[in-house]
């Protein structure tokens, strides 16, 4: 059997009865980039996972015809939770950024406050597509470089490689650290505040 500590994490932690406003932040990135690790670092619950199955048309698959459809794709995502105060609860979603999942995003993650693009500097090209789509959707985001101990790159080098606009914050982080994960989230929210104040065109576009 597991230790008392992990048993404790098995018990479902309930929210306060006053909780009435769920908020979303999405952590998107390539395979093995540390999404689940970051969710785990800052979450008050053990990360949970679930999935959604949809057809290319963006229709949720929930009837027998749909399930039988060959074009149905299943996206699995994990999530954690942070109680912010008596009313607000923040959910963090770790989601794959690969092209073949992106058509699910409008439905799954509409209304998200913003996104963290988690990158591994050894595989920067993995995040090009996600950055492109977020820009297209007008979803505000920050880029967080997870340190896997590869060769050091300067912020300018990474910006250039990602073709990242000046106003998008670039942060170095360690997804295993709670403080570091917290810092990334705070940077995102500050970026959102700036975006609202400077009235940038962050209005999400409808489904293409």
């Amino acid at each position, binding site marked *: 059997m*597991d230790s008392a500590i*992990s048993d404790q*994490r*098995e018990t*479902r932690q*309930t*929210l*306060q*009865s006053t*909780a*009435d*406003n*769920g*908020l*979303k932040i999405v952590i998107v990135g390539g395979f093995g980039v540390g999404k689940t690790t970051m969710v785990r670092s*800052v979450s008050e619950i*053990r990360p*949970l*996972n*679930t*999935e*959604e*199955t*949809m057809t290319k048309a963006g229709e*949720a*698959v*929930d*009837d*027998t015809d749909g*399930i*039988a459809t060959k074009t149905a794709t*299943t996206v*699995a995502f994990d*999530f954690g*939770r*942070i*109680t*912010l*105060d008596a009313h*607000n*609860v*923040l*959910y963090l*979603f770790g989601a794959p950024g690969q092209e073949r999942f992106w058509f699910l995003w409008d439905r*799954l*993650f*509409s*209304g998200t*406050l913003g996104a963290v693009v988690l990158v591994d500097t050894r595989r920067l090209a993995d995040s090009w597509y996600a950055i492109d789509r977020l820009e297209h959707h007008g979803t505000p985001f920050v880029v967080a470089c997870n340190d896997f101990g590869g060769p050091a790159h300067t912020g300018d080098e990474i910006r250039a490689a990602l073709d990242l606009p000046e106003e998008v914050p670039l942060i170095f982080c360690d997804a295993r650290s*709670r403080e570091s994960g*917290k810092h990334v*989230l*705070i940077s995102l*929210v*500050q970026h*959102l*505040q700036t975006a*609202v*104040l400077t009235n940038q065109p962050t*209005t999400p576009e409808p489904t293409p």
Partner: protein
Amino acid sequence: MSGSTSRPGRDDSPDRLYTLTGGRSRAGSDAFDLVTLVVAECDPTPGMQSEHAAILRMSQFPTALVEIAAELGLPVSIVRILLADLLGTGKISARHPRSAYRLPDLDILEQVLVGLRNL
């Protein structure tokens, strides 16, 4: 052992998912966001569909749709339909996110920032 690592839903046969939802499509279930908080308005009753009863037990305190899906091991779209059933019969209430379809206002962002700093 930290819970099930299986992918919920993937092993479920279409027949089982069909039975759960009575074969209905997603009419009326669109209002439920992933983070809509669900609160039970009554106790489970004998003879109730087991998934409905499980949801009522789980949501004695506010519980997000996505947590219900993870706990039941069912895809989000199926849970949306189950919740629409329960809402339609007044067995649950739903607290939808305030900023789901528009930009968050500065007030909310400030509250998020304060909450994060207090972690």
